[in-house]
């Protein structure tokens, strides 16, 4: 039972959980909802993307570049697995 360290980081876990409820969300939504700096969010996104948990979609909205993120199938599975592992760890840590 090993916890996925990429997801286990609080900010990345929140990013993954937000995207789990949606088809996709853009950079502005994640920045404002998580109250992060743009640089900080970019750093976390990069890690999730390089792990293959996120898919980046670049497009133009009203002639302004827009970057959206979507959880990949691998990301969804990893997130589900993460909660299973974490719940198991929590269960095993309980007295009695």
């Amino acid at each position, binding site marked *: 039972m090993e*916890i996925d360290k990429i997801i*286990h*980081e*609080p*900010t990345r*876990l*929140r990013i993954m*959980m*937000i995207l*789990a*409820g*949606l*088809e*996709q*969300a*853009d*950079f*502005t*939504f*994640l*920045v*404002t*909802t*998580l*109250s*992060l*700096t743009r640089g*900080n969010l970019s*750093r976390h996104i990069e890690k999730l993307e390089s792990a293959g948990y996120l898919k980046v979609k670049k497009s133009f*909205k*009203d002639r302004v570049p*827009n970057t*959206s993120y979507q959880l990949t199938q691998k990301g969804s599975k990893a997130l589900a697995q993460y*909660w299973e592992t*974490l*719940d198991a*760890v*929590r269960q095993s840590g309980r007295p009695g």
Partner: protein
Amino acid sequence: MSNQQNSEPQDQNAERLKEIPKWTRRYAQNRMLTIPVLMVMGVLLIMFIAVLLALPLHLTAAGFKKGNMVLGFVGFALFVAALAAVLIFLIIFISKFCRKNSGLIEQLVEQRIYGKEGAVSMPGPKIMKKNIWLGIVIGVVLYICFFGSWHLATEGYIAFKYLQPISVFYIVPWLVSEYFQRRPRIGPLFLISPALYTIHAILIVAGVPLFFTTENFCIFNILLPLIGYTFLAYVIGHVYSRYALKKLKGITHLEGEAANGD
């Protein structure tokens, strides 16, 4: 050991964190103010065009009736000019916002209202792969029911009072089917609209005078509650989306170092 220490605060919040997708979904499903704003814009535009055309027409009619030919011709010239202006506007409007750019107005309004919050989207409807024939059949049935009952009411076969209660049998199934066709893009709050429409009908049958009794306005017995309650459902949805966003931010907000952690 250190891993265990790090995970402790997260363990405490684990159950709360599991609620993030729920609140995100509720927020995304209820960001619906764009549609009521478009409805208001549409109504205002129609009213403006109506006034623009009606004023010179009224002037023309008054001029010719009173034998004032100058006033009549000036009014007519103004009417032609107004009509030309409306036509030019419609041509520009259609060329700019229809066909390839059909969603542009909606996008611009959405950007204006929710731009600062960013963009989110829900997965497409499960029943999607839109069955175009089903849409056409529903449209034709609605058309027949709506104009049929209106015609029967004006002919005296249906009392104006019962126009709206009878329409419940085709408007409510249509609104409910719209919900099922469009979910999960829209949330269950949309069902407020058919629910209120049904309550409206029950109140009328129970004797509450929530209807027009004149022939000229009888169609509004259906249109006003339909547009009004749909509008209300969207506005309630928008208010609920504010609440969902507040809840979401409450769960996801991280203080100082935790937020900047690697």
